[in-house]
């Protein structure tokens, strides 16, 4: 049988899925054990016990200075910023992206502009944001929006343009006005793609969030990582990184489930 036609069974699939994670953990274990055997005070690759200790300290013991449980207060601060940024970007992308995709006049007006804006490196704008909006929440959320909204707008506009022309013609022959066609034909077909687009932007959104937090903040997961870096606290940094990854993975998965539940037809289509 050709390789392209051999498929793993269910059990094998599960085993294969776990294998790279396991290998990574084992490799780390060996590396850590080797370094610690040489120098028991080595900070670079802490042992499992070291992690457990640090996690316990960050998550389950109140901070002496503020009385907060740091992991949770950091998570809350970061997620509020992240979701605010993602939410605002989604609304902007939906409105402008649909308009660009649908209306030739707005396309002529905005499409080149958005294309140019999306090429501006967002991090280069960060100082400007800090100067204009101050060091508070606004500038961090704004960075996320500036970082991901242009890409989302372009993606959605393309998706609208990709819809078969025949569908829109058909809707016109059913007597639909521009508004009605937008509402009943384009929007429902764009929403599942918007969710997919949003999933792809979770990574970049975290990037911009952590960058902003690293530079100026007093809370947040990115802030904490860059703070403890000064003390080479790998035992804190690693769990934080894993935690951020986990949050991103869960968000990604949840969004996909939402798409399947709310738009069952979009899943049928990908199978068909």
């Amino acid at each position, binding site marked *: 049988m050709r390789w392209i036609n051999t498929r793993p069974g269910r059990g094998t699939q599960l085993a294969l899925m776990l294998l790279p994670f396991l290998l990574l953990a084992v490799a780390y274990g060996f590396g850590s054990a080797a370094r610690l055997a040489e120098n028991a005070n080595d900070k670079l690759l802490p042992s499992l016990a070291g992690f457990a200790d640090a996690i316990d300290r960050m998550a389950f013991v109140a901070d002496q200075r503020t009385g907060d449980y740091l992991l949770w207060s950091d998570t809350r601060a970061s997620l509020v910023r992240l979701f605010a940024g993602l939410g605002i970007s989604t609304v902007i992308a939906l409105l402008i992206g649909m308009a660009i995709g649908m209306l030739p006049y707005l396309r002529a007006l905005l499409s080149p502009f958005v294309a140019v804006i999306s090429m501006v490196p967002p991090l280069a704008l960060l100082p400007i944001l800090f100067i204009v909006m101050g060091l508070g929440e606004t500038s961090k959320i704004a960075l996320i929006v500036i970082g991901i909204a242009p890409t989302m707008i372009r993606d959605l506009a393309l998706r609208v343009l990709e819809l*078969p022309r*025949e*569908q829109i*013609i*058909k*809707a*016109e*022959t*059913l*007597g*639909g*006005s521009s*508004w*009605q066609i937008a*509402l*009943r*034909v384009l929007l*429902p*077909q764009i929403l599942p793609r918007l969710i997919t687009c949003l999933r792809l932007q979770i990574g970049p959104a975290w990037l911009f969030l952590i960058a902003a937090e690293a530079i100026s903040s007093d809370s947040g997961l990115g802030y904490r990582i860059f703070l403890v870096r000064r003390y080479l606290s790998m035992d804190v940094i690693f769990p934080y990184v894993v935690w951020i990854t986990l949050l991103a993975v869960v968000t990604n998965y949840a969004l996909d489930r939402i798409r399947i539940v709310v*738009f*069952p*037809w*979009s899943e*049928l*289509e990908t199978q*068909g």
Partner: protein
Amino acid sequence: MSELVIQNVWKEYGDQIVLENVSLTVASRAFVALVGPSGCGKSTFLRMLLGQEKPTRGTILIDGQPMPTEPGPDRGIVFQRYSVFPHLTVLGNVLLGKEFSKSRHKAKLFGAARRNAVEEARDLITEVGLSGTEQKYPVQLSGGMQQRLALAQALIMKPKVLLLDEPFGALDPGIRAEIHTLMKRLWHETQMTIVMVTHDMREAFTLASRIVAFERRRDRPEEKQRYGATITNDIAIWPPRQAGVPSIFSPDRDGPVAFLGHRRDDLALSGESSEAH
């Protein structure tokens, strides 16, 4: 119920002349089959009848009025593909036209208005043989079922003109015969004028009351750009088919075989009818 008058229509895309000097009068309630080689401009012609595109020169009148410059509810269409909405169920697809016309802002019906519309939609769904599939999505239907759905969806608007662009090209012969029976019945029962593009001569002769052939008169490669296609044959089916009138001669004649012998008459007829313009 409406007459289409096409007068000296030319269509050019940039330098390429696609159609030249096409003149045709389609009587109310006629069933015209449009045939011709691939790429000769049949779909282009249909798009002009739809109002999706404007002729470069010439005029198209519908019931004596100039053709609107955009598609509208009086002209229905079924394309070869992509005619139905993948995000709506069968029922939702058929309802959509009603919802557009009855609900300006929300484009959605509720309560009694919805119940009435649903009832009408269900009748049409039954009419095209799709009852029982109301809650399915188009991807869950076969190709033939999707085309029947597209028909039902267009019919709920009660269009004056129904345009079909190779609607049954991809279907197997069995399903096609079924849909042909359906098309005949619809043509007889409704008031529509039908223009159908097809590659299948048998289909053309089975369904139409008149067959119009497009062809390039000059088709050498160096002439392709400069000369468009035009009407080269215009055959009225004999004995005549009329909407709403069952054929007395052979109620279910069903293929080109019977017509092979009439070829000369057909050509003569075409001479007559082109003189008529």
